[in-house]
């Protein structure tokens, strides 16, 4: 599968390495080339410096041929803007969006994006951990 990942933070880099390992054709996009240091040396995908909200950059990254777009940049609004572009303009089949703010995550899920909120996941896990031992 052709996969485009926006944002090469810990999650983006980890996911990119894993997906490339599984044999997928992966492109990682980040505004800061330093972020690519987080990729393991065995990563054999494409690295591109640029913004995932910029149409010119998205096209260069191959969004028109991409089957899956994952927005993992640090800003919620950038992720939401880029994801809506991927879905509405470029017709990407699978779009996944990280939205830290749980309420915004809920709203945009209602509006048709596949969102997840690491804040909500973290709260749930921490809560579970507290009462597991009790």
């Amino acid at each position, binding site marked *: 599968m052709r996969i485009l990942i926006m944002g090469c933070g810990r999650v983006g880099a980890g996911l990119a390495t894993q997906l490339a390992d599984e044999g997928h054709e992966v492109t990682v996009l980040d505004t800061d080339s330093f972020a690519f240091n987080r990729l393991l040396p065995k990563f054999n995908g494409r690295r591109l410096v640029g913004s995932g909200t910029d*149409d010119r950059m998205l096209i260069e990254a191959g969004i028109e041929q991409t089957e899956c777009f994952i927005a993992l940049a640090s800003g919620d609004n950038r992720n939401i803007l880029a994801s809506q572009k991927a879905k509405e303009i470029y017709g990407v089949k699978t779009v996944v969006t990280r939205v830290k703010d749980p309420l915004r995550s809920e709203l945009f899920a209602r509006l048709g994006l596949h969102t997840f909120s690491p804040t909500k996941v973290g709260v749930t896990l921490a809560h579970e951990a507290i009462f597991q031992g009790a």
Partner: protein
Amino acid sequence: MYIIVVGGGAVGHGLALELQQMPDHEVAIVELSGSRASELRAEIGEMVVHGDGSEIAFLEGVGAGRADLLIAVTADDGANLVTCQVAKHWFNVKRTIARVNDPRNEALFLRLGVDSIVSAAGAVMAQIEATLPEHTIIPLMALEGSRLHVVDIRVQEGSPAAGQRLRDLVFPPEVLVSVVIGKSGANVPSGDTVLQVGDEVIAVIPRESDAAVRKMIAGPTEGA
């Protein structure tokens, strides 16, 4: 009417001053930067609120649920779009207006339910498109109290300026080339900017230099 303005930059500040003159309206100006917010508050007063206008919990706190109009005018298109979508779909605000910084985002904003968009590049392009393809020089705006006006000129085939660096062109006095719109979009030119056939040039020029500037930039015209 209750109006929320998100973004306290130049546009938001200007809007706030205008809206202050309309005493029947309640206005809130939302600014993300704490220092900018205090600066605005010192000048405009209590209507300035410090916070993230794209965050639902924050908007709840400024009473977005009873807002009649939300205007998002930050320099960040992502924030402007999301803020309008939150206003519309979470708080059922009747009308939303967004500033679009990257003209390529205009269609997407409208498609995703923003009621109106404001785009500087779009406004200029509309003027240009209305007169294409024959236009050579279009007056866009008169500058009050002076002989100067803002014009749009298209670099055409045969133009003496095509392929030249701006620094190598000798313009009549008081001519200021302000924006060059080429394939890569609108740019503020430098002396090294090379004009290409098809470029649009936005310039401030004295009226009496119209003919000379047209001849230099647009090139020869039929019947001229």
